[in-house]
């Protein structure tokens, strides 16, 4: 099963290089092109999406000029609204942590609220990172604006590297069954059934028993190597504190690593705000942009959670014992994270 899962994941194929630096002023030759996985929706829709971003970009620029020239409060509020919309649309296009979020929730059983949390944290950290980068490099160190933008390449390289390493940890845990795949602190959500007869992906000493009077399950013991006994009810709709600390640490590190990937659009907005003596408004605009991106990326997370849940329930319905596929999903999700981030790391390396 594990071998099949790995083969399937590798056959999914992944595109590679994405320009990390600025092509209009950068010095690197482009990496080799290759067919990618395709856009998430039709080409016509992508053209309309880009056109909408173009218009928003124009409108935000005009509003910043109004702020510079007249200190207009109306213009500030308009910037916030437009930036939010821009963030929603911008994150619909390729990028912005959606692969990490989607792959993570393929690999891990979780509640839909975890999709919101992860997507939001990644987006907000990306926005905060852009503010810090521009604040330190452009304001404190007085770097040229393109040098600030280009420096995102180095941060991007590190970010992808961290994600790749964490993905490898996830892969190891998935293949060996070490640690439980609840992720983000929980996972005994609807539809999660630990039958006590199944091959519980490597947790040989992990025993569950059904409590007949309320149909919940009681976790009696963890694998011996964890050395912990947990006693407590885990009703189907609750989220018990079951996830091992190591899993929570992995989740948090993945969120931070994905959040480190800088958002070039946020950097450009901040640099423009700086040029128009409105850096404070720029920070507020990036906050609104990040919230907009969070909406989109969180939605992807939620859809991934629900998709995984639905798939497993369908498998259960047709009698295929979905728990046997959970390890495969964990492997597939982690392989996707490693593959995507490793290729992008190589692409960023070419441009350093």
């Amino acid at each position, binding site marked *: 099963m594990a071998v099949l899962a790995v083969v399937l994941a590798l056959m999914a194929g992944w*595109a*590679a*290089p*994405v*320009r*990390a630096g600025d*092509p*209009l*002023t*950068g*010095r690197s*030759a*482009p*990496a080799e*092109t*290759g*067919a*990618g*996985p*395709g*856009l998430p929706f039709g*080409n016509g829709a*992508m*053209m309309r999406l*880009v056109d909408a*971003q*173009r218009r928003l*970009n*124009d409108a935000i*620029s005009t509003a910043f*000029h109004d702020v510079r020239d007249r200190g207009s409060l109306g213009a500030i509020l308009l910037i916030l609204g437009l930036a939010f919309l821009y963030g929603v649309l*911008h*994150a619909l*296009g*390729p*990028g*912005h942590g*959606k*692969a990490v979020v*989607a*792959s993570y929730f393929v690999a891990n059983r979780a509640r839909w609220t975890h999709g919101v949390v992860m997507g939001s944290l990644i987006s907000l950290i990306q926005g905060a990172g852009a503010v810090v980068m521009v604040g330190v490099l452009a304001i404190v160190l007085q770097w040229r*604006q*393109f040098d600030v*933008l280009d420096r*995102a*390449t180095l*941060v*991007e390289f590190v970010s*992808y590297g961290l*994600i790749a390493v964490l993905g490898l940890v996830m892969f190891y845990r998935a293949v060996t069954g070490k640690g439980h795949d609840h992720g983000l602190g929980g996972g005994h959500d609807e539809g999660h059934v630990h039958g006590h007869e199944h091959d519980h992906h490597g947790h040989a000493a992990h025993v569950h028993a059904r409590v007949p009077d309320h149909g919940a399950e009681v976790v009696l013991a963890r694998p011996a190597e964890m050395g912990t006994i947990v006693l407590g009810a885990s009703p189907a709709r609750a989220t018990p504190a079951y996830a091992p600390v190591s899993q929570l640490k992995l989740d948090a590190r993945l969120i931070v690593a994905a959040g480190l*990937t800088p958002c*070039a*659009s946020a950097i*450009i907005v901040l640099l*423009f705000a700086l*040029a*128009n003596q409105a850096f404070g408004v720029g920070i507020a605009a990036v906050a609104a942009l990040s919230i907009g991106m969070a909406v989109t990326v969180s939605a992807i997370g939620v859809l991934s959670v629900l998709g995984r849940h639905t798939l497993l329930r369908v498998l259960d319905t047709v009698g295929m014992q979905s728990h046997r596929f959970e390890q495969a999903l964990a492997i597939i999700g982690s392989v*996707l994270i490693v593959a*995507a981030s490793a290729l*992008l790391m190589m692409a960023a390396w070419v441009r350093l």
Partner: protein
Amino acid sequence: MLGTTSASAHPHVFIDYAVTVIFDGQKPSAVHFLWVFDTMYSSMLFRDFTSHPTGQLTASDVLNLRTKAFEDTADFNYFTDLAVNGTDIKIKKVTDFNARIDRGHISYAFTVPIPDSAPAGSGTLEVASFDHEFYISFQLIKGAPIGVKGGDKLGVACKPKTVTKDTSFFGPIDAIVVACNYGKAG
């Protein structure tokens, strides 16, 4: 369907562009481009590569923009997809570079010579500004983005056409190119 955690949730830069196809006698000899940058990116170019003039860019500003910014696009074929009779043209040089600023928008104008190998008398030409990595979104200027100079007796017809182009990462996407026929019914 999965995107990536690239820094570039694409695109980040927006350029409106216009094309003039130039004919010399019986065949196309060059393509002239006008690129108009969005306000935010124009601001970055203005701050980093010009003397911050209150009026029009100086000759020194234009030289800076050409040598320190524009020339690096040579690695990307100047973001120009040009094909004559179906054969892609690798661009070795551009001429007549100029830059201007107008109401916060910096624009580049430049000319791409077409090799002498272009067929005389009749043929096809397809040209577009396009970034295969989708960091930049190029779009034809609204209004009259396509011009033809010369070739009065060739019956030149140029018009926008939607085609599918490959991107480095995102697979094929639709793009609008300028498609010309000359020396035959359009």
